[in-house]
């Protein structure tokens, strides 16, 4: 290659690399738009609401007077509903995902199920609310309770859990499966000793991301009949009306964070808007904490698994 050709080659490489840079800049810009929007919203909420956040705010019930109002019943409601959601969605979603990946024959029936699961993820959440109202409230008579709300949100995030489970399972190399089967394991032994433990990081991440979405859901919770003003907590175990049991709280009326916010934003007084901003700030913190937990768990559980 002579000097001239070398020069031409270098010019060409420089010209090509310009595209690298252009796309890089475009990417950063796109990222900025997304991040800036969120940061601006979050900052705005913080400015409006931070003044209201105090221990009293977290430990008081809602009140007619904005200065005395707090979010105790709302955050307790949210936490309990999430608990029910997780307890219901994890076993169902994991079982469904494991079945589809490890047991089901790959034929048109599983194809249809697969398409439907993906479709379910796209169904508007209010539809789940309507379904739950008919099924859980009227048909099963579970009432307008924490249980109903938790199960409703469990249905909502079920597709997310199933998809996350399947994806995590698919990343397990086939040779690991074959190794286990070659030891004489049954499918159940392969699933319980290998498939589920090795995919637990991915499953948990999916569950938490689903829950982070569910905790902000308002429409289906209103549909199944959450209250907007509630000044008592669900009964702790053995403290409800006799005969008191461990799970009385499941059937208690409740409210959740986004509904409390929604309620306050619809009031005319500016002080209530500050309350709403403060509650929103805490809701976002709850969501971020859940996502943080997902990242941490993923790191912890994946530490020994590298393929």
């Amino acid at each position: 290659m002579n000097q001239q050709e070398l020069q031409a080659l270098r010019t060409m490489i420089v010209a090509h690399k310009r595209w690298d840079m252009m796309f890089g800049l475009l990417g950063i810009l796109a990222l900025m738009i997304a991040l800036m929007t969120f940061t601006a919203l979050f900052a705005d909420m913080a400015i409006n609401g931070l003044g209201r956040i105090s221990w009293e705010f977290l430990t008081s019930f809602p009140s007619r007077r904005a200065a005395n109002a707090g979010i105790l019943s709302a955050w307790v409601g949210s936490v309990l509903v999430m608990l029910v959601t997780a307890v219901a969605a994890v076993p169902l979603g994991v079982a469904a995902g494991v079945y589809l990946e490890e047991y089901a024959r790959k034929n048109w029936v599983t194809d249809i199920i697969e398409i439907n699961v993906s479709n379910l993820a796209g169904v508007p959440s209010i539809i789940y609310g309507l379904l739950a109202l008919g099924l859980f409230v009227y048909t099963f008579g579970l009432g307008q309770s924490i249980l109903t709300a938790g199960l409703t949100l469990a249905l909502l995030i079920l597709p997310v859990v199933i998809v996350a489970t399947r994806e995590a399972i698919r990343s397990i190399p086939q040779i690991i499966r074959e190794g286990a089967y070659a030891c004489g394991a049954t499918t159940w032994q392969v699933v319980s000793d290998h498939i589920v433990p090795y995919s637990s990081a991915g499953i948990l991440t999916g569950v938490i991301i689903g829950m982070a979405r569910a905790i902000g859901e308002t429409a289906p919770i209103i549909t199944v009949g959450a209250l907007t003003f509630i000044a008592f907590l669900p009964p702790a175990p053995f403290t409800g009306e006799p005969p008191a049991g461990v799970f009385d709280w499941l059937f208690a009326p409740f409210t959740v964070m986004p509904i409390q916010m929604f309620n306050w934003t619809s009031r005319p007084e500016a002080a209530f808007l500050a309350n709403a901003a403060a509650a929103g700030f805490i809701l976002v913190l709850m969501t971020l904490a859940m996502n943080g937990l997902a990242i941490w768990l993923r790191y912890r559980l994946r530490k020994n698994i590298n393929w």
Partner: protein
Amino acid sequence: MIEINMQETQLPLKAEARNLSFFYGSFQALKNVNMPIYEKRVTSLIGPSGCGKSTYLRCFNRMHDLYPGNRYEGAIDFHPDHTDLLSPKVDPIEVRMRISMVFQKPNPFPKSIYENVAYGLRVRGESARSVIDDKVEAALRSAALWGEVKDRLNEQGANLSGGQQQRLCIARALATDPELMLFDEPTSALDPIATASIEELITELKEKVTILIVTHNMQQAARISDYTAYMYIGEMVEFGETDQVFIKPNKKETEDYITGRFG
């Protein structure tokens, strides 16, 4: 038909493939294979890539049952009880409990060294700690790995070197006292030193267990095996004692392959 010429025909058989054909869907990967496998001997399978060596090996532990559309024809008569390994009436789990396998790429589970070796025992419902301890130690000793790992049994299997991982997989396959061990190119992912140690190990193991090994490396087949089978496009071209197959093969194709004129 293949010609089998043997001096030691009185040797006990461990297994015998009879008119074994195998189909991946409509593609026939094995055609009417007949082959004896002698007890406590090493039998190696050689042949060009894609000729069906792995396919044949994986018939023995019914690995093909894991995937839909696969079909066996013929039989593998397993001695001394004359179980037909391929019969639909024989549970593949039972077959895999008697015949263990070591894969091409080391595939330790993401568990501790101890749990890797103990897995076969756990699958069999063994839960007595002392029994498992003893068997894990014995298997690791037989796999020539005990000295290197005895102080780190609780470490992850994946932390070991490639050669150690493969010996760990051999220990896992040994821990349950198999009657037959299948090796599918167990050294193809290893360096020469690790390869030599695995070869030595296989030579020692045949005191206890029958071994069927696929290899791409003809020197390896010549070094470690008592019998050699040459396969070509799904057919068993030649089977015989290793010395005979390598020194004066009966078939022209075998000779061409061995001398490197083909393959």
